């Protein structure tokens, strides 16, 4: 049995906005497309910025990395605001549950000493690293050219402050609802030798004038740090009786996988761009040359401190990751030649 509703049928004059019809034909467009494609102004800007008169208000030349048409790149996750906040609401809710569980079972207190050191003196201080990432990323959100690109950066910037808050909440909970651990974490971030390579890198990336140089440079550090802290140590934590560490790390691993989807797609779009591909590859190559050794050194210092606390082979893991990352970057740079 079923019933059939009749509706008044009116033939639409067009199925979507004109700029989408011109790109994709007159077909129904998704909300991602309608809310993203060709949204940013592209011409007839009235005034030059007082803070940078050499550029237009929106200008490809804010970066050496360019796309012939920024809308050839789209977010593989198709995030516009509504699905973005829905997905992050879920992430934070699920993290909140984890934190509640850890607190109710006193699992932070029951961490083996070495693991507690790693958590409090290395992981929680990274809330400042995340905060730095937010600043580097939001700079891209303002200065990137085209809504597809900047929208990913805007959400990523919001994500990074979200990550910073998530790590801070670990610190607050592990210190019994006080700010003691956060104060220690800030001291570690500012003073501990094991974190100074990272902090120096973050501060240097913050003052990069080319937004993409900052964002890509930061990504190189992420690609060394995230797999070490949240994937490799997650495995080690399970073997080492540090369940609390693993339960926290899984959320950051999950986030990083989601994050990689757009940034890998953007890098792929840059290196294969028909007009700017070669120049982009050379600009990316320059960033890698300048920042990858620094990133490896900074994360090795973190690994050294980890091994000092729990001796899980973190230094070797970083060495392997560095090789893998170098190989992956080589492959990326040679994409066009391989094709």
């Amino acid at each position, binding site marked *: 049995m*079923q019933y*059939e*509703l*009749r*509706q*008044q049928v*009116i033939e*639409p004059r*067009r199925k*979507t*906005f*004109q*700029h989408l019809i011109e790109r994709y034909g007159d077909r129904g467009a998704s*909300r991602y497309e309608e*809310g*993203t494609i060709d949204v940013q*102004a592209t011409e*007839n*800007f*009235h*005034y*030059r*910025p*007082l*803070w940078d008169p050499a550029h237009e208000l*929106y200008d490809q030349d804010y970066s050496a990395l360019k796309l012939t048409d920024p809308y050839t790149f789209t977010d593989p996750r198709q995030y*516009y*605001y*509504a699905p973005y906040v*829905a997905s*992050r*609401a879920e*992430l*934070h*809710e699920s993290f*909140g549950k984890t934190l509640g569980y850890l607190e109710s079972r006193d699992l932070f207190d029951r961490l083996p000493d070495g693991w507690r050191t790693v958590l409090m003196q290395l992981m929680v201080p990274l*809330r400042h690293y*995340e*905060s730095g990432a937010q*600043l580097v990323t*939001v700079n891209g*959100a*303002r200065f990137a050219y085209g809504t597809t690109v*900047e929208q990913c950066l*805007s959400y990523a*910037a919001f994500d990074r*402050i*979200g990550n910073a*808050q998530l790590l*801070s909440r670990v610190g607050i909970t592990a210190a019994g*609802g*006080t*700010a*003691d651990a956060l104060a220690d974490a*800030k001291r570690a971030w*500012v003073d501990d030798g094991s974190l100074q390579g990272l902090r*120096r890198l973050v*501060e240097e990336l*913050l*003052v990069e004038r080319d937004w993409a140089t900052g964002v890509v440079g930061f990504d190189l550090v992420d690609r060394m740090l995230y797999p070490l802290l949240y994937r490799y140590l997650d495995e080690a934590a399970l073997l080492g009786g540090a369940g609390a560490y693993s339960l926290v790390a899984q959320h950051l691993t999950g986030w990083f996988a989601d994050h990689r989807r757009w940034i890998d797609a953007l890098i792929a779009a840059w290196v294969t761009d028909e007009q700017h591909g070669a120049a982009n590859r050379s600009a990316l190559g320059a960033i890698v040359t300048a920042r990858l050794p620094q990133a490896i050194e900074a994360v090795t210092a973190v690994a050294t401190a980890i091994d000092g606390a729990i001796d899980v082979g973190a230094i070797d893991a970083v060495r392997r990751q560095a090789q893998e990352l170098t190989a992956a970057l080589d492959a990326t740079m040679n994409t066009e030649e391989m094709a």
Partner: protein
Amino acid sequence: MANTKKLSMKQRYSALTRDLDWESSYVSEEELFPHTKFEGIKIHDWAKWEDPFRLTIDAYCKYQAEKDKRLYAVLDGFAQSQGHLTLSDARYLNAMKLFLQGVTPLEYQAHRHFGYLARHLNGPGPRFAALCQSIDELRHTQTEIHTLSNYNKYYGGLHSWSKMHDRVWYLSVPKSFFDDAISAGPFEFLIAIGFSFEYLLTNLLFVPFMSGASFNGDLPSMTFGFSAQSDESRHMTLGLEAIKFLLEQDEGNVPIVQGWIDKWFWRGYRVTALVAGMLDYMLPRKVMSWKEAFELYFEEQMLGGLFKDLEFYGITPPRHVEHAIAEKDLLSHQVYWTLYSFSFAAAFTTTVPEAGERAWLAEQYPDTFNTFYKPRWDKAQAIIDGGGRFFFQGLPQLCQTCQIPMVFTEPGDPTTLCQRHSVYRGERFDFCSDGCKWIFDREPEKYVQAWMPVHQIYQGNCGGPSVPEVLAWYGIQDGDNGEYTGSLDHLDWRRWHASEPAVASTTKES
């Protein structure tokens, strides 16, 4: 030293936002924040910034996701039920065409440039507040597009809003306004948009559209308006905190901020001229007159309330405000007559107000309508009765600052056009008012750069020398422009309603 007390809500918020900051040592503060010195604003202690709201990321995402779920449910239901057929009239959508072409791109600009503040202000408190506003503004951009997307399928004028915002003459009014703000320094932007646009003028700019929606059966836009309300109230408190913070930090900031209030009041007020025309003439079912809106939202709430509070800091009501007050009886009529005369080159239609509307206008504007403006409409009607339609032949002169055609009249004399000019580097520039001339004169090197639509047409940069070529370059399609009566929207509307009272029927099958 260990602080062993549990965190209060306020301390917790602070720990999760501003405490994420640290003092850099590998690079200097000047390198980190290179844009916060040149405007002359002095900030001695960024920690004195009072957070205007306290939403952590988890709470923000949860709350916003719930709001969006409700909003999109309304949009889907309205689309599925052909809800557009229940609007007061198809011509109501002219207001929403103006909104999508003129306002939505400003939401987007706000999104981008609050991102700039989220990077470039030295203080972590205001940076985080700006980050939240940046992403809110992206929400507004997208929800507005999605709200109006369904109308775009059935009506003209909505299809090319972003290209039009970059090209069409009357849209250079809002575009140049916002370009002016984002090309300024970070503190001026904060006062221009955070304070003047989002606080001082928001009830005049934004609310008339949303109230118009609710009076005219536009459920999606009305729902959007309500859904944006809690975001907007956060933005308003940010704007208010911004101005208080700047004024409290250093006495030397007061004259700088006063200059910006003076500039941005008049700059924003001139943008609201388009809203005035919309409110009095485009809505088939009236909400309130421009005059009434101006008296309530500006004279009473701002001059009578806000500026009384700001007196304490030595801030006075904006320069040229007396001209705006004196103009409240004239503004909408002068603007809409201009739109009527030039709507062959617009992406909306206009029409002579109906008899009932003329009576309403006469009632709302007893001192001016019958004397100055009704005779014009009578003439326009006589031309229509004779089988014609009045359009202005030729291109108007635009004000170099606000870019509105020079249609406003001398203060105190509604029959003489107001014209001002300045000479800069040997060239003459014209203005519609003392306010616009004053703004130009304090930064001539900025305003001479303006992309003036009429000049650009004469210079051959807009598709060609003829009207059809320019319209094609604007992206205007058949049926978007000109007279409403007999337009494509009007004919479709009549056809869709011809078989009424037909009711969609429900049949059951087994």
